[in-house]
C-alpha cells in the first residue's frame, strides 16, 4: 500500500457514503449537501487519474455551479425543512431489486472482461496544453456545437424560468 492507495480509499469512501446519503436521506436539503461532497470526491479521483484540468473543471462547474444551482432550486420552493423526497414502498422494493441486479451484472462484467491495459505507471504531465490543442484541432466541431448548446440552454432557462404573470418586456 502506497500513500496514493489510502487517498483512493478515502475518496472512494467519501463518494460512496455521500451517494448513500443522497439516495437514502429523507430531507432533500441534506441530500443536496451530500451531493456537493460527492462531486468534490470525484474531483479528487480525477487528480489520481492524472487529469488535472478535469479536476479543476469538476470543482468549478459541479461544486461551484451545479450544486449551488440545485440548492437554489430547493430554497426557492417553499417549506424546505418539511420537503421530503416522497417515496412509496413498492417503488423502493422494485427499484432496489433492479438496482442490485444491475450492480451484480456490472460487477460480473468488470471482473470477467480482459481489459487491454497498455500502461499502469504514467508520468504526470500537465494536460491543459494537450486539451487545448485537441479542442482547436480534431475536436473543433463538437467544441463549437457545445458553445451553441450552452447559449441555447442559457436563453431557454431564462425564458422558461420567467414569471408568466408579469409579461410584456
Amino acid at each position, binding site marked *: 500500500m*502506497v500513500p*496514493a*492507495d489510502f487517498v*483512493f480509499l478515502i475518496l472512494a469512501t467519501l463518494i*460512496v457514503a455521500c*451517494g*448513500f446519503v*443522497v*439516495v437514502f436521506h429523507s430531507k*432533500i436539503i441534506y*441530500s*443536496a449537501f451530500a*451531493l456537493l461532497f*460527492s462531486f468534490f470526491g*470525484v474531483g479528487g*479521483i*480525477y487528480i489520481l*487519474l*492524472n487529469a488535472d484540468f*478535469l479536476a479543476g*473543471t469538476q470543482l468549478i*462547474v*459541479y461544486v461551484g455551479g*451545479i450544486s449551488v*444551482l*440545485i440548492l437554489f*432550486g*430547493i430554497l426557492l*420552493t417553499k417549506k424546505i425543512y418539511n*420537503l*421530503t*423526497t*416522497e*417515496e*412509496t414502498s413498492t*417503488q*423502493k422494493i*422494485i*427499484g*432496489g431489486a433492479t*438496482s*442490485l441486479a444491475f450492480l451484480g451484472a456490472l*460487477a460480473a462484467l*468488470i471482473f470477467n472482461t480482459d*481489459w487491454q491495459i*497498455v500502461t*499502469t505507471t*504514467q508520468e504526470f504531465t500537465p*494536460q491543459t496544453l*494537450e*486539451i487545448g490543442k*485537441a*479542442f482547436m484541432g480534431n475536436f473543433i466541431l463538437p467544441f463549437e456545437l*457545445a458553445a451553441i*448548446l*450552452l447559449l441555447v440552454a*442559457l436563453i431557454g*432557462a431564462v425564458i422558461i*424560468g420567467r*414569471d408568466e404573470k408579469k409579461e410584456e418586456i
Partner: protein
Amino acid sequence: MFYNSLEPYLVLSAILFVLGLLAMFTKRNAISILMGVELVLNAACINFVAFSRFVENGISGQLVTIFIIILAASEAAVALAIILHLYRHINSINVDEATQLEG
C-alpha cells in the same frame, strides 16, 4: 495497488451509477431525480477518464468528459427552470402530481 489499476475505478463508478439509478427509481421529488441523474453522469465521467488513463493512454476520454460536464451544466439549468415553473403552476414538485398533459 488500488490507484494504478483499472478495476477499482470501474467498481467505484458502478456503485455510483447504481446509486444514481436507485435515486431515479425511488424518488418522486423532481429535484431528487435530477440529483440521481447527476450521480449517473459523474459515474460515466469516472469511467471515461479511467479508460483513457489505462487503456488508451491519451486524452480523448478526458475530452468526452468535458463535453459530459457541459451537457450536465446546461441540463441542470434547464431542468431547474422547468421545476421552478412547475412549482409555480401546481404548487408542488412531486412528479406524480404533474398530470396536466395526461389525456
